[in-house]
């Protein structure tokens, strides 16, 4: 195992009140993997990252790297590099000097420093800008310097603290791919903190979703989206609709949940909720179809269109159900059909494969 967090807890104190920022987190990060800590602000993801880096001392628990306890080691003795949200480039040094900073400290021969610095500047595509100062670079270029500066150290673990949040949307997407490419080429174990679920989905081997200092779920991007374990995860990753009810049959492939308010029973995949317990069916907006096809395999609900937005590639509906709850549904493959009318009756279908059940 590369990096192991053993039940780490961090309590911040200020004037008598305790704030439990991280609450008994246990996590094993395999060597070479890119793991994302994902969650809303204040969930403890950055504090966790800073404990790995050595900037915060855990109140309890320990951090192990390749079997060695590094809990009490200062940051400079851990061989863990970090890429910061603010880039944190040394403003008084040039691009080249920034990248070479860590190597020079290690007292490596000048030729090696120059060679490795140049290679790294090439890898991140900054050739020609070596002599510039950070304030003469664009945001994306600054982030590349930050990345090169960390990578050149060949760290055991590379940490990313929301590295893309200061970039504009387009640049963010290309930098995301770039980071993933470089990480896979170098196979450096990486921990990546973000609050952006799209970013997390697109670059991670493993996503750890956090809330209030605790891990809510960990799994591959596919798992956390398709098989969320609780409402928080289902809601945080992507858009979601919940249909409330009571489990009637627990079966990972063909379960049943009965909704008394809609006076209907739904076929679903129910791996988690015992018969008789309150349950929620998780249906993603894109899982609905609004066709008129009658198919016994499909669940259906009728509702009235409250509003819709035309977004070019698709229509986004808000549909009100008879029990007053509201469903968000998407319709793709629009032909030259007429747009719907507000107040119009619509029938929403979804397959049981697209209906995952979580505890209610």
């Amino acid at each position, binding site marked *: 195992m590369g990096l192991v967090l053993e039940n780490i807890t961090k309590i*911040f*104190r*200020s*004037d*008598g009140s305790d704030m439990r920022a991280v609450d008994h987190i246990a996590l094993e990060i395999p060597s070479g993997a890119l793991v994302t800590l994902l969650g809303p602000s204040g969930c403890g993801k950055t504090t966790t990252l800073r404990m790995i*880096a*050595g*900037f915060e*001392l*855990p*109140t309890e628990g320990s951090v192990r790297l390749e079997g060695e306890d590094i809990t*009490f*080691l*200062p*940051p*400079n*003795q*851990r*061989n*863990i*590099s*970090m890429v*910061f*949200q*603010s880039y*944190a*480039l*040394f*403003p*008084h040094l040039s691009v080249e000097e920034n990248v070479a*900073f*860590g190597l020079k*400290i*290690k007292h490596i021969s000048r030729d090696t420093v120059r060679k490795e610095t140049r290679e790294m500047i090439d890898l991140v595509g900054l050739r020609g800008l070596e002599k510039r*100062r*950070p*304030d003469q670079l664009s945001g994306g270029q600054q982030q590349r310097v*930050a990345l090169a*500066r*960390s990578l050149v*150290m060949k*760290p055991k673990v590379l*940490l990313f603290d929301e590295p893309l949040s200061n970039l504009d949307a387009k640049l963010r997407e290309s930098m995301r791919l770039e980071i993933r490419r470089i990480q896979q080429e170098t196979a450096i174990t990486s921990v990546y903190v973000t609050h952006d679920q799209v970013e997390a989905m697109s670059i991670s081997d493993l996503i750890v979703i956090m809330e209030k200092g605790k891990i809510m779920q960990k799994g591959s991007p596919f798992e956390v989206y398709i098989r969320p374990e609780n409402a928080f995860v289902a809601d945080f990753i992507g858009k979601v609709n919940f249909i409330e009810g009571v489990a009637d049959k627990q079966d990972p492939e063909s379960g049943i949940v009965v909704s008394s308010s809609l006076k209907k029973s739904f076929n679903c995949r129910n791996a988690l909720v015992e018969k008789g317990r309150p349950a929620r069916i998780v249906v993603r907006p894109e899982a609905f179809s609004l066709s008129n096809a009658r198919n016994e395999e499909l669940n259906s609900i009728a509702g009235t269109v409250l509003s819709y937005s035309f977004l070019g590639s698709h229509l986004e509906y808000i549909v009100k159900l008879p029990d007053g709850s509201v469903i968000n549904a998407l319709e793709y493959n629009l032909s030259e059909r007429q747009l719907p009318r507000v107040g119009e009756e619509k029938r929403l279908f979804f397959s049981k494969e697209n209906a995952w059940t979580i505890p209610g």
Partner: protein
Amino acid sequence: MFFKGHTLADGGAPLRSNELFRSLKALTKEPFLLLLIIGIFFLLFLFSLYPLIKVAMVSFERTDGTLGLDVYQQTLSNSYLRQGFYNSLLVASLTAIFGVAIGYLFAYTLNRADIPLKRFFRFVALMPVVFPPFIGAMSLIMLFGFNGMITAKIFGIRDFPVYGLWGLMMAQMICFFPVAFITLDGVISTISPTLEDAAFNLGASRWQAFRKVILPVSIPGIASTLLVLFIESLADFGNPLILAGSRFPVLSVQAYLEITGMYNLRTGAALAVWLLLPSILAFLAQKYWVSRKRYITLTGKPTTSVIKSVNRPVKWCLFSLCLLISLFILLIYATIIWGSFTQAWGMSNRFTLENFKYVFDVGWESIKDTLVIAFTSTPLSALLGMTIAFLIVRKRFPGKGAMDFLSLLSFAVPGTVIGIGYIFAFNTPPFLLTGTLAILVLNFVFRYIPVGIQSGIALLNQVDPAIEEAAFTLGANNRTVFSRVTLPLIIPAFFSALVFSFVRAMTAISAAIFLVSAKWNLMTVQILSQTDSGRLSEACAYSVILITIILFFMMLLKLLLRNKISLSNQNYGVR
């Protein structure tokens, strides 16, 4: 000087034993940092706290070796000494109130009224900073004293009450009003004019906008400045020595006379403690109470509102007041320069250069000594100040709050008290330092570190901590991070600390007067003794030379650092 109650992220709350153990364990992995912290604690204890403890101990110790508080009863029952305590508090309170009033008048006028000569006013208000603190008293005597240029020569008055309460207060106000101006200027200039716009928009008149908005918002700044001036005035030694005399005793002078004049160490120590108590109380109130209650009115959005806070009559009224005060201050300093070129002030006002020749003949050694001491203590003080600022803002370790407190303490301790403390503490082995260069240098280093610490903290709080964290993750240890990253980034604070402690070291008197010796003497002490023996023209010549030296080195530093400062002025890396 403004002591912000910066919050110590988690150093503020006491650590639980488990956490204490864990953070100590983490410190053992950084032996250099640990040594540095222990070393700084040791130095602060030895050179800031231990002398004070020594003062208290001397005051407790009876001649027969037993301990007791009887000397305090004695000092209280002696009406002359009690009067000194009362007078000190009275002068300090009045100086604080009037000094803040004038400082506020200047700060408000320069920020809120569209008047001419703003640069001139600002220059006059900041000028006294580079002058020795007792110049005001000298000049007042030359103008209003027994042979005063104004009182005696123009009006023929011989007994104008320049000695005593009003003269002392006037001298102190001239000396300390820049302190008030600087802090209040900071307060008022950061009150967004849009606040007044909003008040006008809601139907307030100009006077109401001032009364209900600007004044309340600046109250914390005013309170803080009051306390700072109170402390400065209590600690003042030069002005009362010249102006107060025996008719108007104040504590700092009494303590000095008891010790150096009558060799009455125990009484002197007790008076020092009496002087220390109100200063410490005011300091604690300033640091832990008032400075927390500040309003933040400046938002990130730049506000370019036309200033319309005052109408025309008020504007010219404020202008005239400022002009009057400025001219008076200029007169005070011009008198010193004038005096330095006269044969014997008050008797013969013929032009001469003899005084300067006299100073160079008699005082050459003290000029040399003063420079050696200033040049040794200033860089040490600035560097130590930056190091402590770095530790306090960026590091977590048990005892951080204590280090913060100890390092700022010397601001609150009147120079007289610390001077007495030094002679008590360092006159026996293993710390036999009396009469040496070291005792003066050490005294200056530890007395003036608060300036460096304050400007270091202020600048560090603006530098993204991630820059230093990045250096750590790249393998740099504390030493490397401090020398290669932090120091280059806070170089402006370093140099402002350098300039400030240089000026302070050149003009210091209250503690230094106890520590000078035949071998190591200071210009300020010479000036005082010349004044004391009535050789005012010679004292003026000394002062003019002293001021010239200060200005020369300030200019030189500015020239030398032009490139460096402009580099850091780009403020990249500063949030």
